[in-house]
């Protein structure tokens, strides 16, 4: 019964939205890449790089919002690398992505160690403080859950709407989705598949890095090596769960974060029936279950993983 009571706490739902934020950025980023037909397994490393870049920027005197921008820029650079390999050279999206992940993780750890040698406890910064949106935050329940969050969380919610709008309502979004379905259809209309895919991967990777930056600039106040901890992989599962749809991605990340928040509460509140490691396993197992549930239903972009070469069709 305690479990059910948790579900009526606004604090629980506010925590859910907060925990969903990095996943939401990551999922949207991956979704943009995959809608254009490119799987980006670099997400885990790009998030790590965003984590590190945002934090370092702020630690060395930059302000928080330029820190977010800097993280996005770093993510975009990794995205460009991924695009050159997978789009222009047509190399395996799987292996390239893993290489980008290794590079992103190793580079961010290396740079962190080089900039801050000989430290024992991770130094701290002053992260984003929750803001109250006037009027909206006074709405009972919903106001507390949605409108007293970190500004980055609100940015994530705006991003969902923006991505959904661009994909559905703009000529650029149509071209992007068409590229993921059949690149020849786009090329024959005088658009460049390479340019569209590159742009999508660069923008998508910037989103991922912002998701990483949320961890150091909003959720916590310090950088730890290995801090992304599989969130990137979870985002990839969430994209499948969301059937490549931004709205469903929001629902998916919220459900996922709710389960995660729930397991944390249960872990804290109830008499410990299970060792804590098993609670920590839950997010990974949920992700796998989500993939299994959606396996037969998901309509993936037809040209996902298929490299495009001019003149071949």
């Amino acid at each position, binding site marked *: 019964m305690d479990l059910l009571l948790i579900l009526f706490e606004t604090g629980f739902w506010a925590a859910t939205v907060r925990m969903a934020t990095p996943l939401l950025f990551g999922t949207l980023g991956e979704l943009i890449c995959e809608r254009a037909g490119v799987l980006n397994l670099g997400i885990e490393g790009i998030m790590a790089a965003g984590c590190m870049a945002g934090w370092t920027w702020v630690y060395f005197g930059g302000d928080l919002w330029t820190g977010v921008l800097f993280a996005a820029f770093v993510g975009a650079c990794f995205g460009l690398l991924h695009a050159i390999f997978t789009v222009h050279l047509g190399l395996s999206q799987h292996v390239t992505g893993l*290489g980008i992940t290794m590079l992103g993780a*190793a580079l961010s750890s290396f740079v962190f160690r080089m900039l801050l040698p000989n430290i024992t406890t991770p130094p701290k910064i002053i992260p984003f403080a929750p803001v109250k949106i006037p009027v909206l935050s006074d709405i009972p329940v919903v106001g507390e859950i949605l409108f007293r969050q970190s500004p980055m969380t609100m940015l994530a919610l705006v991003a969902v709407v923006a991505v959904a709008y661009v994909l559905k309502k703009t000529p650029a979004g149509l071209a992007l989705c068409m590229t993921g379905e059949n690149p020849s259809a786009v090329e024959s209309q005088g658009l460049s598949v390479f340019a569209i895919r590159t742009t999508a991967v660069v923008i998508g990777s910037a989103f991922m890095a912002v998701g990483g930056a949320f961890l150091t600039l909003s959720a916590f106040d310090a950088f730890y090596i290995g801090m992304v901890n599989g969130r990137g992989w979870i985002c990839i599962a969430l994209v499948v769960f969301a059937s490549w749809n931004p709205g469903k991605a929001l629902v998916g990340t919220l459900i996922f974060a709710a389960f995660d928040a729930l397991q944390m509460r249960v872990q804290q509140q109830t008499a410990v029936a299970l060792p804590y490691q098993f609670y920590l396993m839950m997010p990974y197992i949920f992700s796998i279950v989500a993939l299994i549930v959606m396996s037969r239903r998901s309509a993936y972009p037809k040209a996902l993983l298929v490299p495009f070469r001019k003149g071949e069709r």
Partner: protein
Amino acid sequence: MRLEPRAHTSMAMTILVPVGAAALALMSCSVLILWAGASPFLALTLLVKGSLGSVFALSETLTRTIPLIFTGLAAAVAFRAKLWNIGAEGQFYLGACAATWLGTGAIDLPPPLLIPLLFAAGAIAGGLWLLGPTLLKTRLAVDEVVTTLLLNFVVLLFVNWLVFGPWKDPMAMGWPQAEPVVDAALLPPLVAKTRLHGGLLIAVFAAVLFWVVMKYTTWGYEIRAVGNNQAGATFAGIPIDRVVIRTALLSGGIAGCAGVSELLGVKGYLTLDLSPGFGYSGIVVAMLAGLHPLGVLLSALFIAALSIGADSMSRALNISNYIADIATAISLLAVLAGMMLTRYRIRFR
């Protein structure tokens, strides 16, 4: 810019590409070393010295080569069948768990029987662990990349629980580690006063065995056919699912052996730092080797030398040893791009 397929790939090119990739990786790291304020030349000298420059350095490098051969083979055989097993890290730990379970006194046998038994147990544990994601792939078309990756985190947490909980060694003064395996299970040292152990022979034997299987047997033929063109293999009547499952058992099994070999040859007991990411480095080893089992021997040696050498170099120059990981990642990306150049030529306009 466009790519045009080459009709023939020269032998020289096939060898030049991984070598060039390795060189490029070291060169890019030189930039980072310069940034850190050290001389890249000195760093490179220290790196070579630290990995190959003395009997001790060489023995350390070869010791590090052993698990990389196993995990490299795991990735090579799976990737040949286009089974994207990224879960070698988890399979490694489960192999070590199985060997710990049976090797810490549960079974009393002489070494010639006990060691093979523990390897078999580790292989079964690793193979079965990969079977799950593989069945999800063949039955429900669930992408195995994500499932194998996510399961790595599950295994690490499971091992975490074991070494902090039920398997915690009361004699270890509070350190999170399991009881050591019995003496009869330990792999004999190859060179006195070094850590180099008999696992090297097993690893080399495994590489040769995998090469024979891939090149000369119907199993290998089927794995290559399925990996190159699944639709074509299906049409020809090759039982795809059976081949993929067989590949998974081979791949997971050999990754499990990596864990057993590290446990019985180096540490002697299960801990959370038994592998500094051997499962992931195995992917680089396999790609550098062009997925060739005998090439894995060389590329494993290279990656091992890189990490051992970087360790000693970073201590001497006070540079973070993450530079080895960067070099590894860059060599992966470089070899990937290079392999494409063996098949296509780039034409501008």
